[in-house]
């Protein structure tokens, strides 16, 4: 999925996708990174820059329900797709039950990697609603938490998966 070079004249295209349930229409270069478009043009700063190369997972969002590193994903990748960020998880002022488990179990410290952790876990659980601990660890392995709240993050995901049952949508 190679996009036009940005050298020379910028080539803007119409990009349309769904963001947290709302339609979005942008005139933008299709090779712009989703992370920066979210944080600047769309003013959603819950999605964080951590490494810019897909190593840390702080920028994780869901695209059509699957966890994606928004620092690597381009606008043309999300064209016509459904994007969910951390801001789209809590509905009507109520924490999503997965967020509630993170909150109540202290599965965060500085909180900077937390949106990426929650979105990655949310994506995993949609694919596999009843993961074993091993599957949770494998699925979360490439999300980094420097405060190292890993133990409680696993416990929060387990608690949610156990409590919620089948449907995580």
């Amino acid at each position, binding site marked *: 999925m190679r996009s036009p070079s940005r050298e020379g004249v910028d080539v803007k295209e119409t990009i349309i996708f769904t963001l947290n349930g709302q339609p979005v229409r942008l005139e933008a270069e299709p090779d712009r990174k989703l992370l920066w478009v979210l944080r600047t043009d769309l003013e959603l700063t819950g*999605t964080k820059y951590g490494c*810019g190369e897909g190593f840390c997972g702080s920028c994780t969002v869901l695209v059509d329900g699957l966890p994606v590193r928004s620092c690597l994903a381009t606008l043309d990748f999300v064209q016509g797709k459904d994007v969910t960020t951390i801001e789209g998880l809590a509905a009507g002022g109520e924490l999503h039950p997965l967020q509630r488990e993170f909150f109540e179990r202290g599965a965060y410290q500085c909180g900077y990697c937390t949106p990426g952790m929650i979105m990655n876990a949310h994506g995993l659980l949609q694919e596999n609603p009843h993961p074993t601990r091993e599957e949770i660890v494998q699925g979360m392995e490439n999300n980094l938490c420097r405060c190292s*709240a*890993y133990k409680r993050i696993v416990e929060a995901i387990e608690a949610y998966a156990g409590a919620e049952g089948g449907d995580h949508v």
Partner: protein
Amino acid sequence: MSEAKAIDRRDFVKVLGGGILVTVNLGPLTLFNSTAEPAYQGRGYPEDINAYLHIAEDGKVTLYSGKIEMGQGVMTSLCQMAAEDLGVSLDAMHIVMGDTDTCPWDMGTFGSLTTRMFGPAVRAAAAKARLILTDLAAERLGVSRDALSVADGVVYVTRDKARSVTYGALARGQAITHEVDEEAVLRAVKDFSVMGQSPLRMDGVEKVTGAAQYAGDIRLPGMLYARVLRPPAHGASLTRVDTSGAEAIPEVTVVNQEGLVAVLAADPETAERALEAIQAEFDEPAPAVDTESIFQHLVDSSPEPNTPEREGDLEAGRRASARTFDHTYFNSYVAHAPIEPHTAVAEIKDGKATVWSSTQGPFSQQGSIARAIGFEPGNVRVLTPYVGGGFGGKVGGSQVVEAARLAQITGRPVQVAWTRAEEFFYDTFRPAATIRVLSGMDEDGKLTLWDYQVYGAGARGSDVFYDVPNKSVRVYGEWGRAPAGMHPFGVGAWRAPAANSNRFAAEQQIDIMAAAAGRDPLEFRLENTTDPRMLGVLKTIKDASGWQSKAAPARNGSGRGLACGIDAETYVALVAEVTVDSSTGNVTVDRVVCAQDMGVVVNPDGARMQMEGCIAMGLGYVFSEEIRFEGGKILDKNFGTYQLARFSQMPEIETVFVPNDDLPPKGGGEPAIINMGAVVANAIFDATGARLYRLPMTPERVLEAIS
């Protein structure tokens, strides 16, 4: 307190809209902590510990603290302390942190000082506020102070609860400032209703919803995103720069002033593209030292030592020793690597600079910014939103100065956010260390000699709590005061600075001696110390971990190790259980148990979170974290090569407190990490019979040691 300051405070109350402001001054910090970092002293700031507490006319209570929240949970625990002694519920509390305009001066959030040093100021302010409010209520209700009680922000007549008045009602129409000049009585531990509890953290909802704002999330109208030209290596100098390629990109601003070459644009991607279009040449000095040669270099370039401990006679100790042990330990440079890189947003308007910064030291940054842009410090306001991890790495940070200078030059608000590569380059690394320990014991396994020399790291964690009649600790080059040339780049405080290196050496040395004496490592320690708090954590860890006495290593691929130490006045002991794969050198840590005597525990679950984080984070420097470099060139630029601890490495973690309510709260953010190197090394020894003298203990080094 100067008159000028007092007037400021009356103005402050006006700004707050009336009510009651209580300030407390607990005197110079040095009275409380003689080991305070000298780098932060003597800058003309008031070196005292202040707390402001405001009770508004609507009963809302706000604590103003120069401390910052970077994940350690102090936003909540400080409010718990204030609520306890003020007599309100935690729900009534609000807190403003790290704002140089409204918060009392603070030297910075580091050294596990918030709870043990600032906490008493908060409690004193709260207790004083309770007295002031009780006196106002006594007047209002026509009874004496002694006849009144306080609960949940209501003062009532003890014998007639119907006669009562709320804090808000008492604060109404007031514009009082008070300093605490008499000793107010603090709530006794047995009466605690807010302290000693584990309420849900006050920062939690914002953090799980993405609403929590960090410096990079501040967005101002017209703000530009800056990227700064960086040298390829520390010590390199710019010889030629051609910015025409960047200038050709529409809507890009190029700055080239006094060594600051930067590009600015309305979005970070355009700024990055502009930076790539700059052509620059640098003169790079030939590398003098690298990842492998650094350990000898530290010894060769070391200054005269400080000698924090000296007792008895080393020569006599040698003569009294039936056996001596001479080992050298090595620790590499380690990055702080907070997931949030150093970031700042600066705006200059009407002669005043406002800077939002990811910092552990807003007040020291206020000074740095003021000097850089030629402002009076009073015209620079630093605001500290949530900080995305610090670990000592955000005590300094030139990003604020860059942002402020660029805002001054361009006349626009500017964001400077370091990339991950910049973060790895400008980090003030945990210094590499070479540590030589010569020790001895008599026929009975009693320590007779401890001759300890540490190069590069510093003194913290080198204290000898074992009973040794002849001992010396020599510290060649403290991390904050190393001579030029000792380290090829900046070094600084890294979570429990120096202690991680020192305990790695000291607690292995003790273990080596225990094995040589044919003694169980735990019993050997118990027999060689009389420090009651150390005996307490050792006995606790024995029970909590199910420690079985054993005189010789198992050498069957599975092992357990022990290590202990003192940090931030907290005593800590850990036991780790490991499995070693002798074909790959991979070590799995299966279980870690941590026992901690930290005095009164303000928030038990918060303290456990710190202990768990210390243990888990420590596994990174234990197994994989190591900055590789050639001279001033940093070879690690991202997490692809520099490996932090991950989910799959997590052991079972159990945390235990040694009850000690007679002691005020001690540090909690750092102690549990200091022993991670030694406790794992000692467990590997039990599993394999092999010793690892160098951190990190990579699979290659483990294989080499066991083969």
